[in-house]
Each structure stands twice: as C-alpha cells, then as structure tokens.
C-alpha cells in the first residue's frame, strides 16, 4: 500500500484489513415521501444554522428595538396630542411585530444567495428531488426562523402596555407566520435572479424599506394625503400591518376616540377592507411568489 505516514490513510487501510462488510444503500424512485423528506431536511437545516448563528439572532432584533423604544419614546411628546392618551410605543407595536419578522425572513432568503456563493446550492440542486421541494423547505425554514424572532417581540408586549393574552398571542403568531412565509417567498424569488450578496441586500433594502415606511407601521392610515394614501393601499405590507393592529387594539383598553383615530382600518373608497380579505391577500401573494420562485429555480440548468 502507500508509504505515506498519514494517519488517516492508516486508519482507512485498517478498516479494509478488518474486513467490515460494505453497507450498501439504494436511492429509491422519487415519491411524495422522498419529497416530504427533502422539504423537512431543508427546513431543519435552516433551524440548525439559525441556532449556530447567535450573532444573527441579536442583529436582526436591533432595528425593531430601535424603532420601538428609541423612536417610540423620542416622539412620544410630539405625538401625545394625537394619540388620545395611547402611548406611542403601544401604537407602533403592531408595526414592529411585522417588521421584526420581515427583516429576519429577508435574511433567511438571503442565505440562498450565500448557498450559491459557497456552492452548497449545487449540492441541493443535483439531488434527485424536485426543485420545488428545496424552495418550499427554504420558505418554511425562513418562516420558522422569523417566527422565533417574532416570539421575542411578542414577549416584550407588557413593556409597551400590551398584556399577555393567549388569544392575542395566537393571533399575532399566526399573522407573523403568514407574513414571514410571504416575505421569504419574495426573497427567494429575488434570490433566484440575483447572484451576488451585495446586490441582493441592496435590492431587498430598496424594496423592503419603502414598503415598511409606506405600510402604516408607524402612522395611522386614515386621513393621509392622497398620494400617500394611494401608495399605502398599493403596498402589500399594509394588509399585514392592519390585521396585526386590529388584533392588538382589540385586546387593550383604549378610548373610543383613540380607536377611531389610530385603528380606523384600511379602506378602499370608504369601504373598510375585512380582515379575512387582508389575510387572503397576504397568503395569495405569498403563494404566487412561491410559485414564481419554484418556476425560476426549476428553469435554471
């Protein structure tokens, strides 16, 4: 055999000498079960990576906390006149519940660009499973990670005068899950086309930041200037922030006047858009983007 003193080689030769029987496995035909297994492992990988990346847990929380505590406290005195006694932090809290999962979901989607840069995407792409399983696993993974981050924001509710309430927590969690899924799908769709990390983050920033500002996460959507009202109604995120705010406001004690001023809801030509429709829009949009993402990844060689 080889004359190398490499210990690895020696141990390998010993294994042969001892004559261990070969464990032979086989790869089954593609089936629903194998696709589900692929989805599950891609999803699990996202969670394992998230757990390994402690820095990311902290960094993605910085922005929501800044908005909530710095902006919320800093503008309190200016805003006091218009909030009818509601603390500004309480008012923007639903918006913060949304952006917390948004930014995390965005980072999760970004990992597909990393995977491409570091070659791991190729390992997944050559596996004998549908590309759609990879994309779906990725989106579930991103949504799960984002929801774990969202739980942190849910947990700090009492700090901004939003009490713990099982129904509210479930409602918020459910909405966060849908939003996180849709945003991840959006990110994965963009990541299919953009091969470089810097450009990806740039594009996402360029799209997500205006979406966040226009959505009404930080201001009431009633009585806006016409141009802003139009943009606001066109912004998909508006329809995630609104149900979130309705959920939170239905569980806190505020005056009727405050409800009117702060939680008037999104209207189309005077018609108040029902929550069910808003949620349906987020889900449908998410599914459409997921479909585009799958199509894009399936089309690439």
């Amino acid at each position, binding site marked *: 055999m080889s004359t190398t003193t*490499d210990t690895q080689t020696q141990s390998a030769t010993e294994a042969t000498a001892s004559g261990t029987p070969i464990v032979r496995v086989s790869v089954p035909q593609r089936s629903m079960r194998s696709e589900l297994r692929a989805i599950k492992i891609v999803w699990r990988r996202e969670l394992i990576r998230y757990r390994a990346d402690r820095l990311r847990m902290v960094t993605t929380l910085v922005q929501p906390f800044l908005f909530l505590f710095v902006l919320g406290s800093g503008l309190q005195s200016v805003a006091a006149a218009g909030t009818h006694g509601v603390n500004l932090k309480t008012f923007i809290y639903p918006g913060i519940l949304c952006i917390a999962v948004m930014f995390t979901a965005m980072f999760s989607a970004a990992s597909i660009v990393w995977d491409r840069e570091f*070659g791991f995407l190729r390992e997944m792409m050559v596996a004998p499973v549908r590309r759609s399983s990879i994309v779906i696993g990725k989106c579930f993974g991103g949504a799960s990670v984002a929801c774990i981050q969202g739980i942190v924001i849910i947990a700090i509710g009492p700090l901004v005068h939003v009490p713990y309430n099982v129904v509210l927590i479930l409602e918020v969690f459910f909405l966060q899950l849908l939003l996180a899924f849709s945003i991840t799908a959006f990110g994965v769709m963009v990541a299919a086309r953009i091969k470089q990390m810097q450009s990806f983050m740039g594009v996402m920033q360029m799209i997500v930041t205006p979406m966040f500002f226009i959505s009404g996460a930080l201001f009431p959507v009633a009585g806006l200037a016409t141009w802003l009202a139009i943009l606001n109604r066109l912004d998909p995120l508006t329809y995630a922030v609104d149900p979130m705010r309705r959920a939170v406001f239905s569980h806190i004690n505020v005056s009727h006047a405050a409800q009117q001023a702060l939680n008037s809801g999104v209207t189309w030509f005077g018609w108040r858009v029902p929550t069910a429709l808003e949620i349906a829009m987020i889900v449908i949009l998410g599914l459409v983007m997921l479909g585009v993402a799958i199509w894009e990844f399936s089309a690439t060689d």
Partner: protein
Amino acid sequence: MTSPATNGASAPAISVRDLVKNFGEVRAVRGVNFEVAMGEVFGFLGPNGAGKTTTINMLCTLATPTSGQAAVAGHDVATERDDVRRNIGLVFQDPTLDGYLTAAQNLQLHAELYGVQSDLVQARMRQVMEMVGLWDRKDSVVGTFSGGMRRRLEIARGLMHSPRVLFLDEPTIGLDPQTRRSIWTYIRELKEREEITIFMTTHYMDEAEWCDRIAIMDHGEIVALDSPGALKAGIGTDRVTIHTDDNDAAIAALQRQFEIEAKVSEGAVTFGVPAGEEFVPRLFAEFEMPIRSVSVSRPTLDDVFMSYTGTTIRDAEEDQSKHRNRVMMQMMTGGRR
C-alpha cells in the same frame, strides 16, 4: 488496447455519442465520443478550459447538451435526469459543503435529500467517514476543517448513497502532495471495495497514471483515448540523451551512421529511438566518438500530451492565463483604444 476492469459483456457505465455544448459563440465541447466500462477508473486529462468540466456537467445533468447523446448508468442525461442523479455521486471542483453544519450533519442532509433508507444512514455514514479517516471528527463543524479534510468529506458524502458512478472534478486541485497521495489511496481502495465506476478530471499528469484509461482533451475535443501504458507505448520511441565533447559533430555522426535526427537540448544531444535499451549497446559498439554519459527514458504522459497537442500541458495553461491577464488588464484600463 482498451482494458476495461470488468468483463466486457456488462453495459457501459457511461456512453457518450457526438456530445456538443456551445455557450453562445464559444464551442466548449465539440462532439466527443467515448464509453466507460463498469468498474473502470476513467480520467479526463487536459489543460484548464479544455472542456472537461463542461463535459462532466453534462454527464451529471447540470448542463443540457446542445446536441448529441450521453447515458450514465443506462439512463439518458437529458431525458432521465432523475434516474441519472439517483445513480451518481459528485465531488465538485469547488467545495459544496455547508460550513455551518458538522461533518455528520452534512452527510445526514445528503442522505435525506437522496432518500437513503433511514435505518441504514448511520451505518453507511460511519463506513464512508472511516474510509476517509474522518469518523473521529464527525461532530466538528465543517468550517473548522482544512482544505484536504473538506475534500475528503466531500468524497465521503458523494459515496453516501452508494452511487454506481462517482464523478470527481479535479479532486486533488489545490491540495498538498501528501493529501493528494492519500486521496488517491482512497480512490483506489474504493474501487476495490465497492462496485463503482469512477470518472474524473485532472490536469496533473502524474495522477492520470492512476487511471485505467485516460482521454486527453484539448480545445473541446478528445485527441487520444487509451490506457496510460498504451498511450505512452503509442508514442513509439524512447528518448536517449548523450553527453559528448562536441555536440555538433555528434549530431552529424548520428545522422551519418544511424540516420537519426538528433538535436541539442539543455547542453546534451537527444534523439528518439524505438527501443532505447537495445540501441544503447549498439551505440557504444559502433559510434565513432567518445561518449561521456548516456541516459534512456521512457515516454511520459507529458510526451503523450505533447505529441497529440503540440504543446505541454503547462504551456497550454500559461498561454491561457496570459490571455486572461491581458483581457483583465484591458478591462481595468478601459480597453485598448
């Protein structure tokens, strides 16, 4: 002569007919034909940019052929992609491990993606990791591994699902000589232990010697295909180098006495003869000039490559990198204007 490792009756592991791949104007692969028998170690040899990786990508279903056919493990690479993928293992030129996961997690993920029977995953994982000597590092995060360890882990991963054909694209590139040698030990051992066909590309001449057969690729075409021994024998001549006191006189004398065309290279007279060992005694007996020293060398794969492509593999690569540098300089300086 070709010498497939197993009996010739079995279906070929890989068969390729008139395979072509164009990238726009660039004709990367220009109609190649070959067959690889089951159990063979088959090498693709050529400089960077010869079309080796493009060919391997087509065989692995990562690129669609522009025209022509290729079948791997009996399945067409264009129409039966899934069946091909189930039967092949891949080790890419660039690393494709997840550096955040442990070695075991990387292999587990691979097994799940390929649908390996759950109850066999652990045993198989242990087997392939022991083979490349990484079992004791299974719970280490891959990000902490050296280049050689990563490559070994990639080979282990490529074997996780017991593929029938293992593709290795430049498996030893960028590794130190000792690691290269140990990787070759694994590959040879692998061939003995598992019923597997190995298809690899390399641009190291010395590594091509390990293959059962090699195809020399240049400018998108296969210019020679045979066992390393047969390719070298095919050159037909051994190289004889003699030192004399007067090289010009020696060349003239060789021409006059033996009708041999000799030339001066690195201060010595060299020439090719069909059977070097048999010629040397004759030379000493009959040559009219004193000879200070003589050496006979068998042709190397470098000579083979040289005879088929008219250049050494190193020169072919230097030409390319010079060209690349020139293009890069033009891009940086805004082009020649």
